[in-house]
């Protein structure tokens, strides 16, 4: 799933490790989410949204919306 995690992180000058520590996950997890290789669970997605103080849909791109745009 596409997301803006890398951009949001860069805006705050956080490294992947910084973000991982704030979310209490591994740096490996942050990297997998950022690169779209892993879709976080709903609880983790909410933790991410709360950390950045943004609605989930402003961080993660809905796959349905993304595919309809492509059409």
């Amino acid at each position, binding site marked *: 799933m596409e997301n803006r995690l890398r951009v949001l992180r860069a805006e705050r000058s956080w490294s992947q490790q910084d973000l991982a520590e704030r979310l*209490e*996950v*591994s740096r*490996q*997890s942050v990297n*997998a*989410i950022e*690169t779209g*290789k*892993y879709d*976080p*669970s709903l609880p*983790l997605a909410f933790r991410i949204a709360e950390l950045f103080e943004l609605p989930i849909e402003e961080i993660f791109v809905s796959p349905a919306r993304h595919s309809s745009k492509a059409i």
Partner: protein
Amino acid sequence: MSPAMKRYNRRVLWLSLLYAACLLAAIFGFKHKLFGGLIAYIAAILPALPIIGIFGAMGRYLFEEQDEYVRMLTVRQSLWASGFALSVATIWGFLESFDLVEHVDSYSVAIIWFMGLGVGSVMNKLTLGAPVKC
């Protein structure tokens, strides 16, 4: 390394040591004909218990691991290991049925499953770019 993984490694280390001790005791006992009747069955099963414990430790690790991505990688690794071990056992079973290969003790499936964890790790690396771990 997560705290859950550290606990898993510690448990596997102790269970491995226990396995070695049980196996050596069983070999010694059977070699010197120290066991008979029900005791012989118990002594023969004893080395299997720490191996079963390692499977249990893996299950407990999956339950305790808080990092959902790392947990998912381990689940995938275990599924690959299970598929690998069952496939090898099935192929070997048919080869053995048609007298094309020697008989292999069934506990070898457990060893193949542990080897399969390595296969799973490589598959995680190839498909998700995750670091290889066994």
